[in-house]
């Protein structure tokens, strides 16, 4: 009996080696009929995590957002904001392992808009929209500490240095490019680059590639001096919130009532997001500024065309990220007579599957065409942002007090503690003051 089975096996092996069939799940050996009463064990697969957690995530997000908004705008307590930041980091970061986060949900949404066949998870919609709605009414309270990526960096911002404005403006263009590329790649169904290059996910999971771990560690260490580098100079979701926050109904203010220009808060913000009062001296140069504004307004359309054209030059390189485009490329470069060891698995798989090459080519042409249009839009968008940033610099707005910059302010409420207005003076301090003037 045993030898018979061996013999059958050998025959099958030999016949299969000669034909090299890729076939699967063929009943070559019938299921034995056991005489010893042996029972076949059940196939072991583990259960899927209950959907309950997804609802819990949404619930906790809305709860955190509401609480954070209240703490920042009404309670005005940095201490409370700090503890909520810690909670959010522990829950969304370490417990739920940082996925899904609103930063990445941008890609789900853009993929859903441009690919009608894609089923977008309800969680992604909620995670994308809830922070935006809160920002629309109350400013970027999401960034304050609900975002796990922001929260982990916020705890590292201990010795912040102030950056020169031109550095901030130049580095501030990176998120725009990043957002553009993230939307381009997800809209074409190619890749989710924001998730792939999420620098802190390996911390949250205490697992993952060493490259991303070191990148994350480098960002956190940089964050000691340049506070929240990812939020300010990389985050694509921040671009959206930055824009929307400018039109928010309410926003955190440094002072609870009226600013007395005491300058105590001048260095309070680790993110250089406090706008200083602008003197009237700037207004005297108004003619000069208007001239500049006109020039910038005129060159912006030209800039849009130039950057759009430049980006479109690279659309084929962008398209190479797409699996199908890469496959078609490899199919044409590897000949059928190539050394089997040099042929990529993708090519072998495609050739053995018997799918027509023409259909793939047609599909790839369509994808490349989409990349062409997309890179025009992304490039043009970047040019528009550069033009508007330049134009914005020339517009003068009279301001006689210290205010957080509506776009850049992350609503962390650090500055609130610096404002002396409306605070009860400490008893001991009062005594000291009195003695001094005695």
């Amino acid at each position, binding site marked *: 009996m045993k030898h018979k089975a061996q013999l059958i096996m050998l025959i099958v092996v030999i016949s299969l080696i000669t034909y090299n069939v890729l076939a699967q799940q063929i009943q070559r050996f019938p299921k034995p009929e056991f005489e010893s009463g042996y029972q076949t064990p059940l196939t072991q697969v583990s259960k899927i995590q209950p959907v309950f957690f997804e*609802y819990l995530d949404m619930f906790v997000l809305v709860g955190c957002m509401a609480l954070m908004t209240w703490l920042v705008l009404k309670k005005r307590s940095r201490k409370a904001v700090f503890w909520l930041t810690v909670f959010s980091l522990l829950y969304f970061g370490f417990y739920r392992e940082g996925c899904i986060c609103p930063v990445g949900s941008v890609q789900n949404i853009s993929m859903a808009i441009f690919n009608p066949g894609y*089923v977008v998870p309800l969680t992604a919609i909620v995670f994308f929209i809830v922070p935006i709605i809160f920002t629309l009414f109350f400013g970027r309270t999401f960034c304050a500490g609900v975002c796990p990526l922001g929260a982990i960096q916020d705890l590292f911002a201990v010795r912040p240095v102030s950056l020169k404005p031109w550095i901030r403006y130049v580095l501030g263009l990176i998120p725009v490019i990043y957002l553009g590329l993230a939307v381009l790649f997800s809209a074409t169904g190619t890749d989710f680059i924001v998730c792939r290059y999420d620098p802190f996910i390996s911390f949250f999971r205490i697992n993952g590639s060493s490259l991303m771990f070191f990148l994350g560690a480098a960002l956190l260490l940089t964050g000691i001096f340049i506070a929240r580098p990812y939020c300010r100079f990389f985050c694509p979701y921040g671009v959206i919130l930055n824009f929307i926050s400018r039109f928010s109904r309410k926003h955190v203010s440094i002072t609870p009532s009226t600013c007395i220009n005491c300058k105590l808060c001048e260095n309070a913000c680790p993110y250089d997001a406090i706008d200083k009062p602008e003197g009237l001296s700037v207004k005297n140069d108004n003619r000069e500024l208007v001239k500049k504004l006109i020039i910038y307004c005129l060159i912006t359309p030209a800039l849009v065309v130039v950057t759009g054209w430049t980006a479109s030059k690279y659309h084929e390189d962008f398209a190479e990220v797409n699996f199908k485009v890469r496959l078609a490329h490899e199919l044409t470069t590897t000949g059928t007579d190539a050394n089997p060891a040099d042929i990529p698995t993708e090519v072998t798989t495609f050739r053995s599957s018997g799918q027509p090459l023409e259909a793939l080519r047609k599909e790839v042409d369509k994808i490349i065409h989409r990349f062409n249009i997309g890179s025009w839009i992304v490039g043009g968008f970047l040019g528009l942002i550069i033009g508007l940033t330049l134009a914005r610099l020339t517009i003068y707005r009279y301001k006689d007090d210290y205010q957080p910059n509506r776009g850049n302010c992350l609503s962390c409420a650090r500055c609130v503690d610096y404002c002396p207005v409306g605070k009860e003076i400490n008893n001991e301090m009062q005594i000291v003051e009195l003695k001094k003037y005695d």
Partner: protein
Amino acid sequence: MDNSRKIKRREFINKGVRLGIGVGLGALAIDLSTRSAEGKTIWQIDPSKCVQCDKCSTDCVLDTSAVKCIHVTDMCGYCDLCSGYLRTGTKNLNTAAENRQCPTGAIVRKFVEEPFFEYTIVEELCNGCAKCVKSCGAFGNGSLQLQIQQNLCVNCNQCSIARVCPGQAISRVDRSTPYLLKGFGGKS
């Protein structure tokens, strides 16, 4: 006078933009929620597209891949000379370590009755390299199949194995079908 008018104008613009963004968001939310899935979709491998390339063991974000070999016991032939367990073309027909397919020794063999043996996968040791899956599919019944173990998978927004999978076998599936094991003839 001039100043207060300016502020009013700015407030008016802000209000208008806010309304515009709000309406836009609402429309987007309604449009998307009509074709949304309850909770996240999950990742799974379609065994009929799987080419056993070994990328599952190297490209998962987890140190040890969430992709495991699943033994569909009902399809197993209980062979003594199991091609998933033993390497082909070995000198001596015995179960010494150098003759086994699995690089981590994750397949346990147990004698049932003459001439049948039961095979079990130790999940902690399996790294999803698909060596056993490949030879079981080629020479045996194909009862060993790669699947993403849903309790291990962290359900990344974008599966990093799916991105490089040569057969594009990994896709988002509905929660109601967490496993896509195949029966004979490739039917699930």
